[in-house]
Each structure stands twice: as C-alpha cells, then as structure tokens.
C-alpha cells in the first residue's frame, strides 16, 4: 500500500493531501481537512448529505475516490459560505425555515447552488427533481423547496411571494 499525494482546489484554496488508496473525497474532507459540513448519512450514495460540487457538478462524495478529483475544483458548504454573512441561498434557507436538525442542509444547499447556477429560475418540478436524491427526515421537504424558490426569486429580483 502506498499513500498518494493528491492536489485539488477547495474553494479558493489549493490543497494537497496524502491519502490511502481509494480514500473517498468525503473522508478526506472530513477527517484530514476538517471540512465537516460535508456529512456522512449513508455512504451508499442514497441520502445526498455528502453532496459536494466538483467543477460545479453535484456529486456524492462518499462514492468518489479523492484521487479522481485531483486537479479539479471542489466546493463544499464551507467554501460556498461568504467570509461574512450568508449567501442568498443560505439566507433563503433561514427565512423559509428549511431545516430542523440541519444534517441534510449542506447537501441540500450544494444541490440548490448547482441548480440555480444552471437554471436561475427553475420550475417547482425542476427544484423537486434536483433535490430528489437528498433525504430530509424532519421538514417534509416543502420548506426546502420554498427556500430554493425564494432564493431564485430574490436573485431574479422578483416578488418573493410569486411562484
């Protein structure tokens, strides 16, 4: 067994980590880099709580060997959070009461970010479809869908009660 050095871009940082063979991006973020916003909900690819963005694409970091992101851009909720204050999506999650226990929230925000980057004014169905792989056991989802819609509406400068 040989450890490998992997370099990638984490937000606006260049990071280098020495990893065991097949170490997942999830485990490296959480255990080696201390980026624990990326959660561990199932490690089966089924709950979405470990979702990160790789080159802007949402991916299950529990299924992704970190060596495969060498040279790529990785975004986690830490890197999606502005130095001061909150991003519009984060603000919308607060305003729409889109969490209870908070454990699914980082994955939800990662997917929402990717969605709004591609589709700034998504339909309700597109929001729901985008989040279908992210489990929330507390809220019943509607507040989360509301939050994404609210963020989209605010970014588009529209009325907040408009649907």
């Amino acid at each position, binding site marked *: 067994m040989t450890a490998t050095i992997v370099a990638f871009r984490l937000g606006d940082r260049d990071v280098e980590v020495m990893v*065991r063979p097949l170490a997942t991006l999830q485990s490296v973020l*959480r*255990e080696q880099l*201390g980026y*624990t*916003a*990326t*959660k*561990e*909900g*199932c*490690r*089966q690819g*089924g*709950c979405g*709580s470990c979702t990160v963005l790789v080159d802007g694409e949402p991916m299950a970091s529990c299924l992704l060997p970190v060596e495969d992101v060498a040279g790529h851009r990785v975004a*986690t*909720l*830490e890197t999606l*959070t502005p130095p001061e204050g*909150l991003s519009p999506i*984060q*603000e919308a*999650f*607060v305003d729409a*009461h889109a*969490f*209870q*226990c*908070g*454990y*699914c*929230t*980082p994955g939800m*925000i990662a997917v929402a970010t990717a969605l709004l980057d591609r589709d700034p004014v998504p339909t309700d169905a597109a929001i729901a479809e985008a989040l279908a792989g992210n*489990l*929330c*056991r*507390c809220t019943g989802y509607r507040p989360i869908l509301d939050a994404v819609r609210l963020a989209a509406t605010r970014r588009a400068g529209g009325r907040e009660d408009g649907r």
Partner: protein
Amino acid sequence: MTTTGLHVVGRSVERSDRLGHVTGRTRYTADRTFPGMLHLKMVRSPAHHARVRGIDLAEAERVPGFVRAFTAADVPHNRYTILSLIGVEPEDELVLAEERVRFQGEAIVAIVAETEAAALEAVSKVRLDLEELPAVFDVEEALRPGAPIVTDWGTNTFMYEGHPCRRVRLGDVEAAFASADHIVEAVYRSSPIEHAPTETTGCIAVPEPDGRVSVYTNTQALYFSLDNTAIILQVPGNRLHFIGGTVGGGFGGKVDVIVEPIATLAAMRTGRPVRFVYSRAEEMLVSSTRSAWRIAIKDGVMADGRIVARQVTSYADSGAYSRQTPYALTKHAANAAGPYTIPNVAIDAYCVYTNRQPTSAMRGFGVTMASFAVEVQMDRVAERVGLDPWTVRFINAYHEGDLRPHRKRAEDVTLIETMQAAATLVGHELPAELRAMTSAPRPDGDGGPAR
C-alpha cells in the same frame, strides 16, 4: 405587550442554531476526530436464533491494523439495563452475546482497529461456530403452543405483574356487547418502521488525562446513557462525561443505549479514542425499529352511534429483546380506546418476543398505531350505523373530567373544538348540533358519559 401579556413566548423568534445549520458549522457527534482514534465494528450474528459454540479470532487478529477484540467476558456487567434504571425489568439483553443469539445482527464480538477498513476486514475474518435453533418471526405464531421460546423466562410475552399483557378494565364489556345493537370488529396490522434519522447513531469515547472518559454521543438522553454506561462498565458515574445535545434527527431511535457502553469500554481498555458509528445498513437491519403491531378491536355500538363497549387486543412485536417496548405497551394501553368516552372497555396489550431485530421507542411511542386502528375503526362504526364520520366522533368524544379507561380523569380536553376547527378549515359544514357542542364537563358532573 401582546394580547396575551407575553413578550417573547408566542413569537416566532429565529432559531438560535440557524447560522450553524446553514453554514455547515454545527458540530455533530461524528464531525469530531481525535489523534489516534480507533474504529469499532461489530461481529454480528448471521443466524436468527442460534447457540454460540465457538468464536475463532485467530485470522481476524492477523489483519493489519487490528488492535483488539472484545467478547462478552470483557464486559464487566454484560447486561443492557435500559429501563431497569427506572425499575422496569427484565435485564434480558446482553452487551455482547454469550451462549445464545436471538436475532440476525446481534452483536457478538466488538473489534477495534486503526482504520475503519481494517476493522471491517477483521470483522469479516472472525469465524463463528453457531448451532442454529428454530426461530419465530410473527407475533401470533410466537404465542402458539410449541413456538420456539425467545426469552429466558419461558414465555414469549413480557409479564406485567403476573399478567402476560398490560390490562385495562372499565365496566363490563361482555354485558355491553350483549345489549349492543351492533358489533363492529376488525383487525389492524402495521409493519415495522425505521427511524431513518439522516445522522446515524454513534459516539466517540475519548480517554482524558484525569482518568475520566469523555463520550461524544448523539443520544437523545445524555444522563440516561451515562448512568447505563456506568452500570455496564461498573465504574462510578463521575468517571464519565457525556457530551452531545446536537442531534441529526432522533425520532426515538437514539434513546437506546447501544453504542456508548462498548465504545467506552474499548476506550478505557486501549487508552485511545474509539469511534463507533452505525453504518446505514446497521441502522436499518440491526438498530431498533418501531414495532410491528396487530390490533384487534371489537366494538359494541348502539343504533344511534354511541359506542358502549370497546375491547382491544394488541400485540406489539418487541423483537428479540425488551428495550423500551414493554413500556410502549403501557402507554398504548392508556390510549388504545382513543379520545372517546366509552363506559365499558377491556384492553389486553401484549409485548411479544420474536427472533426479529429489537424494537423500541419511536415517535408516537405505542400510540401511533393505536390511533391508526381506532380512527379507521371509527369510520367502520360510522358506516355500520349509517352516520357520517364526523358525527360518530363528536357523539363519542371525551369531555373534560370524563373517566378514561385507565381511570384517569381527562384533563385539558379539546377534541370537539379541534374537530370543529378542522371542519371549518376544510369547509365542511357540520350540523348545528355538532357546532354547538363543547368539551366542557358533562352536566351530570360525575364525569361519566351522559347517557
């Protein structure tokens, strides 16, 4: 000042944890890592019911990264105490199995290793010599003569002060059935259900320089977990420090004290931090679920819709061990007649053992499936007597001060007002006599139904 005279109670102030949650900086149990942390994984029974004849660790010990294995002999007081802390017996479950395993997935050997992968591989290398025994998986089959016996005390039911079920008795159901215009009977069933919190159950036990152990855990009940761990490890409570309070969803599944004792033991014996966090498959296949229920209801009903007798026979599948399920049956029994005042009630609520994964507390503990059964039954009653579903609920609804089947006077009762509000919400026009009803104490003042 608000109309209530209150300043902040009643206001939707923003959650104090909102910033942590939306930035991912809220710290959950498994977000912590410690230098030198070991990983604990369980060797679990592949059999549903078996005698343990031998455990061979030789191959597992050769796995690189293997640190130590723990078997039953290593556990100072190898009994899950759970409810015995508050005087509810029996201590029927072991921390690690001894001679017998009673469900597929029961913990037999705990292995700690340098990495999780090493722990998993070592687990896969443990050879178990098991002699399979006949198993039973259904609550009613478990009660038939000749069924395999799951427990140590010779029956597959929990014994409630000499009775095989939690009993509630009010009035005389048989006499009331005899005089009732209709008998309405049905049996209701439900499947076991997983809590499925997004964060799986887990803890990290960390030895401290002063000889204490800090246990970071997502338990729903810190002192409950601490006190039970102290008993199992036979150490004074002051050696333990439990830290948590931020939980990624509980729903009752994190009231069992399963992960903390063995992780704490491993930390004390190895002198190193030990992490024991359930995989999702463990959460689904091994951790407690909501019980499967079978609830038979027999109602005696008068032609005008009054229910004069209700007999409920309930079986909750406790799985192989008690955990909190015997208590669930007591709570069930207090609520199994529903929010209705019925003069004659007989409830027999059985906590039944089978060779399934244990069941325990879950949101709605003992009541959720009672509500399902009773409320579907109310529609059956309504249909039989030709009343609409609202009316039959109103005329049987309990009132303030009514005597409930478990002989507690009903307090803070507002069922009628709540139903009126629901009817208004959905635009269902109630007849004038139902609109005029209130939950106020009945005029005869005896708290019994006015009949």
